[in-house]
């Protein structure tokens, strides 16, 4: 199992997966813990500020689940490194904090036919999209098409509530473990959680016929770095 991003969503995902005891964990991240992370990234403490997230997360995971096998990859998931990072991975959980990485993850995993669970949290909303059969139809691009041209709201400017990240992470970890166990009934669905009402709704996503990644005339056949030029949220 691969977790991309050790942030607000990635940390509860990693905690749930580690405690499930059913998989080895590979985690990729290149950030340091910042003070503004601590209100939502509950596995980190004040003494972790300035340390690498991977180091802090690995230590926290081992204290909760001493038997867990963690392979920490200090770096970013990039077009150049994607193939190597995905090697031998059964399911990917995308907990990244920016659209460029999300689309890259979607493309790289669809091409490698690895299923992805995309977990996200912004303001009071959490979403969790589970890709379709074989990691292909429907894919992330069936839902979101392409990187937004305007700067998208990210957790830095728009804010986010910690437990909303926790719901996103818990629901994403559940989906990933179900994939791993061979239960694909939730493949191709998106779960949306509203933190004001506390309700979760799951809807089925229809594959788009002209999707550039999984449609009939799909144009994305390889990872071209020019496609992923979006900005990122640093905290």
């Amino acid at each position, binding site marked *: 199992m691969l977790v991309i991003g050790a942030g607000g969503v990635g940390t*509860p995902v990693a*905690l*749930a*997966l580690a*405690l*499930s005891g059913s998989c080895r964990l590979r985690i990729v991240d290149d950030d340091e813990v910042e*003070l*503004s992370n*601590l*209100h*939502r*990234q*509950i596995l980190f403490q004040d003494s972790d500020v300035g340390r690498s997230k991977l180091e802090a997360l690995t230590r926290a995971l081992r204290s909760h689940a001493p038997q867990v096998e963690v392979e920490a990859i200090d770096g970013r998931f990039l077009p150049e490194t994607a193939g190597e990072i995905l090697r031998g991975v059964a399911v990917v959980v995308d907990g990244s904090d920016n659209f460029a990485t999300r689309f890259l993850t979607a493309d790289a995993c669809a091409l490698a036919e690895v299923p992805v669970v995309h977990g996200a949290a912004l*303001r*009071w909303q959490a979403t969790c999209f589970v890709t379709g059969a074989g990691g292909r139809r429907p894919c992330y691009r069936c839902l979101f098409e392409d990187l937004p041209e305007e700067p998208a709201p990210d*957790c*830095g*400017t*728009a*804010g*986010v*509530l*910690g*437990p*909303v*990240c*926790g*719901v996103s*992470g*818990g*629901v994403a*970890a*559940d989906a990933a*473990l*179900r994939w791993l166990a061979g239960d694909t009934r939730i493949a191709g669905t998106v*779960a949306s959680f509203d*933190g*004001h009402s*506390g*309700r*979760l709704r*799951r809807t089925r996503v229809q594959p788009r016929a002209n999707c550039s990644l999984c449609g009939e005339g799909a144009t994305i056949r390889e990872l071209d770095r020019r496609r992923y030029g979006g900005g990122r949220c640093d*905290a």
Partner: protein
Amino acid sequence: MTPKAKELIGDHPTLAVTIDRRRYARHLTLPGVGEQGQRRLHAASVEIQGSGLRGWVARRYLEAAGVGEVRQGARGSEGPRWLLEELVEGPSREVTAGALEALEQLREALKAT
């Protein structure tokens, strides 16, 4: 305290605390929390009902959000129905349940005057 501050927050001592703007930056820009909401969280005393992993997650989210006091209560409800229907039993469900419990307490604390 300046007369202006006193006019704004009254005599309530816990409302006078300075907000750590860097730590709570993501709350200060969040509609429904903001500066006033953060002060309410600092002044709040809440009770959690879950135990084990669920209780730990709930407590950590509440402490991380800056809630003034988190008390341990008796074991309570299992959570909303969707939680039991949508998620398989195990740590993923427990983490989600803890987050939901924390969220409910934050909502209550933000409402309080």
